[in-house]
């Protein structure tokens, strides 16, 4: 019973937050709604007994990515923060609506009737340790490649966010 209640609260957080993100007229508020939505997802991870993922969700998504988004809004043009009247919709929304609904309905139509295969084994007790073993043995390549990915992102960010233009020749 209490599980159901938590599940419903988490769903309200996730979906309500998501609706807030796309409907809020203030970009800053959208970012705050996003945090709510991230929080709801973290709750799902707990309910699925994936506690470590929940911690990652909190640390990376709420603790870092959401903050990054807030920064990005704060250094963009000032009107983005202040304007209370700017609607997010544009004239393509009536085109977007049927497409999004179509995708939603077809996904629902597929997912609802399916008999999902359910694992009979108990969930792993020491998830973090298993994860560590997996990273270092069978998922070695993805693990190392992630660091390349992170480096590329780092270089790209440094490159794009540098304040002045790349050094121009001083001659002339």
């Amino acid at each position, binding site marked *: 019973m209490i599980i159901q209640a938590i599940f419903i609260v988490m769903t309200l957080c996730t979906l309500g937050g998501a609706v807030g993100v796309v409907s809020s007229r203030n970009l800053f508020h959208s970012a705050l709604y996003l945090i709510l939505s991230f929080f709801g997802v973290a709750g799902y991870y707990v*309910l699925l007994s994936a506690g470590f993922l929940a911690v990652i969700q909190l640390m990376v998504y709420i603790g870092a990515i959401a903050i990054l988004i807030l*920064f990005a809004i*704060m*250094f963009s043009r000032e009107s983005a923060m202040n304007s209370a009247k700017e609607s997010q919709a544009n004239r393509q929304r009536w085109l977007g609506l049927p497409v999004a609904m179509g995708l939603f309905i077809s996904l629902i139509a597929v997912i609802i009737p399916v008999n999902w295969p*359910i694992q009979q084994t108990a969930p792993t007790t020491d998830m973090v340790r298993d994860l560590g073993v997996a990273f*270092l043995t069978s998922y070695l390549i993805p693990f190392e490649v992630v660091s390349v990915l*992170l480096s590329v992102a780092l270089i790209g*960010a*440094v490159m794009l966010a540098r304040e002045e233009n790349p050094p121009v020749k001083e001659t002339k």
Partner: protein
Amino acid sequence: MSGLYLPKEYLAILLFIVLGVGFGVVTLWIGQFFRMKRPYFEKLVAYESGNPPTDEPRMRFSVKFYLIAILFIVFDVEAIYLYSWALVYDKLGMFALVEMFIFIALLLVGYFYGWKKGALQWEK
């Protein structure tokens, strides 16, 4: 929803969230019955440790913050990998050490590059 269950360890966290949110909401809600409400200009000004505010709070932030935040994310993610690695490190020994060394070395090159390119420098 038969697949869902809440491990006992999380009950404390649940309690913490409920009490934490509840305390804030309830005190504010009760407080509004007792407190006086006489707003005037000085009261409505943003509170800056008693000093009169000098600037609009909604100024543009420097893009430097963004770079710092990106650096933070990168090493935040790295910390997560480090954590799960640290738990099994003793079982895999040298092998795990080398693997992690490669992982960190790759990131360090990126970090070193950003450092030398002045991404960490606040003023030029």
